[in-house]
């Protein structure tokens, strides 16, 4: 049996082609795949400083587990059940402090960098210099349907990150207003 031995130059060319293909594949846009959860910074140090902190990490298995314990006869639970159908993850970090700007701004900037990719659309950006309230809402939309939402809201004494992963029905999400103890914002009618 004859064994075909490759010439060293041929072998080097094959390796170069392989490397090129690997680089090309890694450089391809990944917008087709829905964005996964953000890499949230480790805020353990903040929990000790915060007056109140909410840390929620719900992946798809925990969401389905929670859905099984929602009472459909309760309006709030029914709304929650509708909202989480199609979601694959909810990640929340919210901290309230007794003094101003305890949280590291670099972590907020790092989060903003994560969503400054083409797969995310920066749909709301509010910078209120007077009250120093900043709100950013990023959405990932694929085929006309939102499949990722990130809310970064920061005030001098409050810092909140919400990352919702999966198919999001914004109309259902809007119905959150007035539920779960959140007062409904009055809608100003145009005169």
């Amino acid at each position: 049996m004859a064994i075909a031995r490759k010439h060293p130059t041929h072998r080097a060319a094959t390796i170069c082609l392989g490397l090129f293909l690997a680089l090309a594949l890694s450089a391809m846009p990944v917008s087709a795949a829905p964005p996964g959860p953000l890499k949230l910074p480790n805020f353990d140090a903040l929990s000790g400083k915060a007056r109140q902190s909410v840390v929620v990490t719900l992946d798809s298995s925990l969401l389905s587990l929670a859905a099984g314990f929602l009472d459909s006869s309760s309006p709030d639970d029914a709304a929650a059940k509708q909202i989480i159908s199609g979601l694959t993850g909810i990640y929340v970090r919210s901290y309230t402090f007794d003094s101003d700007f305890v949280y590291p701004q670099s972590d907020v900037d790092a989060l903003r960098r994560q969503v400054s990719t083409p797969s995310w659309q920066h749909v709301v950006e509010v910078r209120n210099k007077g009250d120093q309230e900043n709100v950013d809402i990023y959405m990932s939309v694929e085929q006309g349907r939102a499949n990722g939402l990130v809310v970064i809201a920061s005030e001098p004494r409050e810092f909140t990150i919400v990352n919702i992963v999966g198919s999001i029905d914004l109309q259902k999400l809007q119905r959150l207003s007035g539920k779960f103890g959140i007062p409904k914002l009055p809608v100003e009618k145009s005169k």
Partner: protein
Amino acid sequence: MSEELEKGLRQALRPVDPGERFTDGVMARAGAQESARLERPQPDSPGHARPWGHTPMWRWLSGAAAAILIVVLVVHTQQVRHTREGLAARQALIQALQVTAKSLEFAKRAVNDSNAPSRVPDSGA
């Protein structure tokens, strides 16, 4: 002193003829013990009455009951853990939705209050 002891031992250990009836007596007692053993019911024979707790049926039942008890305990523990985890997940979900709702309301208010031009997500997306 030692001579007396030796004499006593010799006297005690001297060979004594057991007599002609000794062999007959031993044989008769051995025969009686053997016949008594044969007349006693064997453990596996129908006439043998074991204590109730030592019967094979009882052993089988107690083993099965122990196995069932273990299975019930394991299932119950798993159900309790599942319920606890489910309720904790539900509580976490409600909390997450509360924070989300609050953040969206905050965003709405900030957009309404802000004089700067801002974009609001299209709800029909």
